[in-house]
């Protein structure tokens, strides 16, 4: 306790409140000014320019990146547009090809049909000619048969008649 009171007494003589011990003021002020100058130099010479450069660079990078993103976005929409265009082109092309194919098929079909028609017509004409031929032949034959039959009949009835008159009579009757 004795030591303590001694120490206390010393303190009291030193300063009631250390803050008001004016003997230490020059010392504190001296070192404070040195510290302040040091901090000022650290900040103004190195730290603040460096940090402001970092911040400027960052905002530059960000705006660059944003611009790049915008660019890429435009490119993407362009690519999409060209893709759609290609798709539409392809579709049109395929339609065109299909139409062409259809038209060609139609043309082929038409040609085949006309050919077939002409062939049919030719054959019909031929057939008709043949029929007409046959028919005329047949009527000729009928006349001959009739003349032959009439002569035979006339002979059978015992009438003497010339062949020419019989024929004329038969022809007469056949015309009638």
């Amino acid at each position: 306790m004795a030591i303590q009171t001694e120490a206390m007494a010393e303190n009291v003589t030193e300063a009631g409140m250390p803050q008001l011990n004016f003997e230490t003021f020059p010392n504190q002020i001296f070192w404070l000014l040195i510290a302040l100058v040091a901090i000022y130099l650290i900040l103004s010479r190195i730290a603040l320019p460096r940090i402001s450069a970092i911040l400027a660079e960052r905002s530059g990078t960000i705006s660059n990146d944003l611009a790049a993103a915008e660019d890429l976005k435009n490119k993407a929409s362009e690519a999409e547009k060209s893709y759609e265009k290609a798709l539409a082109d392809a579709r049109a092309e395929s339609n065109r090809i299909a139409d062409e194919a259809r038209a060609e098929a139609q043309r082929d079909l038409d040609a085949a049909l006309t050919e077939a028609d002409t062939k049919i017509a030719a054959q019909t004409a031929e057939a008709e000619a043949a029929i007409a031929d046959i028919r005329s032949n047949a009527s000729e034959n009928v006349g001959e048969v009739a003349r032959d039959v009439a002569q035979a009949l006339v002979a059978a009835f015992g009438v003497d008649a010339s062949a020419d008159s019989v024929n004329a009579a038969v022809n007469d009757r056949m015309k009638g």
Partner: protein
Amino acid sequence: MAGENDIVTEVPSVAESVTEGATTEHLVEGGAYPAEEGGLVFHPLDQFIVRPLFGDGPISWYTPTNVTLWLAIAVLCVAALFIFATRNRSTIPSRSQSIAELLYGFTHKMVEDVAGKEGLRYFPYIMTLFVFILFANFLGLIPMSFSTTSHIAVTAVLGFGVFFGVTILGFILNGPAFLKLFWMSEAPLFLRPIIAVIEVISYFVRPVSHSVRLAGNITAGHAVIKVFAGFAAIAVLSPVSVVAIALIYGLEVLVAGIQAYVFAILTCVYLKDALHPAH
């Protein structure tokens, strides 16, 4: 009783020391704590004593003292945060670099908001003040450390430095027009001289309040913590005391930041007066 009186007078008269002195008296009166428990004798202000680092001689202006040590530590911490942490200049900042950037952005915005664009010319000075006080306050909160900003010698240099700097700047920039600061052109004519007197007085009180506010806050907080630490020597009171210290410590952390901020923003306000004196 003589001893008791000694103790009471030894505890100096900070606002808090009134109650603290009373408790001391009570404890000693109780007599439950014999002389060996010297821890009960409060020395809440011993932490502020300026001592030479080497030897025990008188303190002259150049003697390296504990003030020197803790100022140097503050400078080193500033250098660590603002030079070492930003050395990579990374676009994507590391944690410590973002703290430095945060402090930069915070102070920059404060100066710009309060003092305007022209105030940004003086941004490095305000940043110096803010960063110094901030680091000194926080370093002072380390147990066994020395709070440089608890000393009126330190804060008065800062406060009066700002005062003279701003006043000289005001006259340089505005000439005699700087005196318009004291002439309220909106007030009724007959009131203007009275207001001018009040304004002048308040102008000259500024540096005092500016510096005493900082030193007072830091001193009071540290002294209160020390007083509660003294109570921790009593077994019955120690849990309360420890909890109280923890709570007050939290408060002091807040005060350390806020006082640095207050000092810086008041500097900005004074700077704004120098840049635009007309009301």
